[in-house]
């Protein structure tokens, strides 16, 4: 089933350049709901799949973009390793390429790092139909601009991802979830306190009543910390975090516009109507709210954050937070540097490119 479709894909892009055809890049389709709607001729990547190199003792894996995320996670689990950014799948068809292009990280993000923190190298086809390789399979690499990390979260607007190399980490020996009945303000205070001393947190979420935290580390580290911070042990902690990560928690079962607010973690509970849930130790707040986008965005900007219309609501407006004029100009220039004919996922990120 594994196959290298790089050459075919390159030919398709070159043809699209010649015929000025806009392409809509398609992986497993699990994150079609994300970003702006974009039209164009579908370019299927799911056949370009397979793990190319996995060396557990080197802490690296390289795989083709169409490789199912589940296949990669299974291979890593066999050696007691994991993708450190705990990516959401949002469906069984999720691929590695889509994960990198969307750049969405899971509950472990504030403590272990984001998708972009673990990308070491990348092979892409740019909008001119050129095959390019940046970075590699080594942990430290400062030769040339860091195009690999630039691709993360760019939603396919700069290049078609072919192969991706990632740094991976060993799975913690032990994990434990603790729950605390607490008020919103108290939840933030507790998190702030734990964050300023060496507590091995790996996830923290507050649903309006319960603060749940996950501890990860060696058996000893988890046991010692558990004694220090108290709380009630959640019997099925891993299921809880998986439900949070995959948006299968009851909160997400809704057709109302779902906003993702990225704010400084210690920000007090937001003065906005609507149901909310706090993840990432306070740095990521989910809000269900039919208010106009401007009202939400103004509030968040005052707090030093930004807001994304993550799911539902109109998908043809400003889904991502509007950029200041100078940054928007720079984005357009970068887009032309990689895709001068504007044929890759046009409008998926911002309407202007």
């Amino acid at each position, binding site marked *: 089933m594994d196959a290298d479709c790089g050459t075919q894909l390159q030919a398709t892009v070159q043809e699209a350049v010649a015929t000025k055809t806009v392409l809509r890049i398609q992986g497993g389709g699990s994150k079609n709901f994300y970003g702006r709607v974009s039209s164009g001729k579908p370019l299927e990547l799911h056949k370009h799949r397979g793990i190319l190199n996995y060396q557990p003792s080197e802490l690296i894996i390289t795989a083709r973009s169409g490789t199912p995320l589940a296949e990669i996670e299974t291979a890593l689990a066999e050696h007691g390793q994991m993708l450190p950014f705990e990516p959401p799948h949002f469906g069984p068809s999720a691929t590695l390429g889509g994960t990198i292009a969307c750049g969405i990280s899971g509950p472990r993000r504030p403590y272990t790092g984001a998708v972009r*923190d673990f990308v070491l190298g990348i092979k892409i086809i740019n909008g001119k139909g050129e095959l390019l390789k940046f970075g590699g399979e080594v942990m430290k690499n*400062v030769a040339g*601009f860091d195009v690999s*990390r630039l691709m993360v979260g760019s939603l396919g607007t700069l290049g078609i991802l072919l192969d991706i190399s990632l740094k991976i980490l060993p799975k913690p020996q032990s994990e434990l979830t603790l729950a605390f009945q607490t008020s919103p303000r108290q939840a933030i205070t507790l998190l702030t306190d734990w964050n300023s001393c*060496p507590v091995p947190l790996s996830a923290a979420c507050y649903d309006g009543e319960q603060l749940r935290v996950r501890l990860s580390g*060696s058996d000893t580290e988890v046991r010692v910390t558990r004694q220090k911070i108290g709380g009630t042990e959640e019997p099925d902690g891993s299921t809880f975090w998986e439900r949070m990560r995959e948006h299968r928690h009851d909160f997400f079962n809704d057709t109302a516009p779902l906003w993702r607010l990225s704010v400084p*973690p210690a920000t007090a509970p937001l003065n906005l109507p609507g149901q909310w849930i706090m993840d990432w130790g306070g740095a990521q707040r989910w809000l269900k709210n039919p208010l106009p986008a401007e009202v939400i965005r103004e509030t968040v900007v005052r707090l030093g954050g930004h807001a994304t219309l993550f799911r539902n609501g109109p998908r043809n407006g400003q889904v991502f937070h509007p950029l200041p004029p100078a940054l928007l100009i720079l984005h357009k220039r970068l887009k032309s540097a990689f895709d001068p004919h504007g044929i890759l996922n046009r409008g998926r990120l911002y309407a202007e490119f």
Partner: protein
Amino acid sequence: MLTAQTALLDKQALLAALSEILPAQSVLERDEDLRPYECDGLTAYRALPGVVCLPETVAQVQKILRLCHSMHIPVVARGAGTGLSGGALPLPDGVLLSLAKFTRTLEIDLHNRVARVEPGVRNLAISQAVAPYGLYYAPDPSSQIACTIGGNVAENSGGVHCLKYGLTVHNVVGLKILTMDGELLELGGKTLDAPGYDLLALLHGSEGLLGVIVEVTVKLLPKPERAQVVLAAFSDVASAGEAVAAIIAAGIIPAGLEMMDRLATRAAEDFVHAGYPADAAALLLCELDGVNEEVSERIFEVRQLLLKAGATEVRTAKDEIERLKFWAGRKAAFPAVGRLAPDYYCMDGTIPRARLSEVLTRIAGLSETYNLPVANVFHAGDGNLHPLILYDANKPGELARAEEFGGEILELCVAVGGTITGEHGVGVEKLNQMCVQFNSTELAQFHALKDAFDPKHLLNPGKAVPTLHRCAEFGALHVHKGRLPFPELERF
């Protein structure tokens, strides 16, 4: 191109305009005042800048950039000048923009565990400023006493703790930069991400080619409860390499994992008397940190792994003083090796760790061919190798031989699947090797990216990314395995 050693065309007009922006003592233009700026940490390359500017406010930097932009004068930004690849080498026809006066800590936000600092704040000074709160800034390049955070971002500096705690890019959450036309951009902030492309990541390691960094927001970490270091001696380098792989395969991510070969170990021991076993062919330092009980368990585990891999001696530092002594030897390895010869040339390739033994054997072979000794210091955990080539610049031809030797080492790193630079940057030093690591389409993509930020090519021009013509010329001198690189380009 560096060869364009033309002097400033209209120095008087520039000085007159600068006098409107800066007080007289903040503009240097006489040879004796310019001399301290003629090179950075890579002293083999020197040039006097046209003018040095020492602004102290963002508004001043903005005006200087706008002025240079309108007069078409190139600008080289400089922090502490500790860089090792000539990234801050001045241009005779340009302005050297020193950010040395930007030394204020603007905010320490304990709730969000970040500090907002100016670019000229020294790396170590950040950790010192937040130490009273039990916090620190993780990346610790060896030059941390002197190097500045702005320079760390420009080079994406590493250090001995980056296997566990990451590089600069993993520890900076926000930047304010000025583009060449004087536009102030905010990238990131106190949040964990920002809308749009990840320009925050892109700026890291961009070597001053994309923007001038005027503010940095860094992530602060709580100091671990305990740190402990184990020292192990090996009678051959291969076993030491196997020990490293065994530790990582066991699911342990040490806070630091460093290796030195015989020559580096001896030099360090003679220099700082760290208590290293002088007869070891390879020395490994493995630091574990975390909660007290956890560290004790891990130390036991690591000791077993080291012995199993064939360590001839394993020692755990008996107290904090001995731990610091063990590290002092490693951190002083460069100056220690520097005592063995009048000059040394430090390389910075990164390799897949599994190829270590093979690479070191090949380097030993090259050392004989070039008749120049080499000492190896290795960030073993992340594969970053620092071969130090010893030479004497006063002996005719030795510098050229050292450079050629160094070039071959870097090409060897690329050949085994690694990179020419792990943390020191390309600067002016590794431009030729960039032609080996990247093909002409990739280099053209880098140039297009640079154009998006700086269409007039005025920010640190001629550094980090070679022109295609340069690569064609280099390729003509340098045919690999019978294949001519850049066959599609005309030869000159």
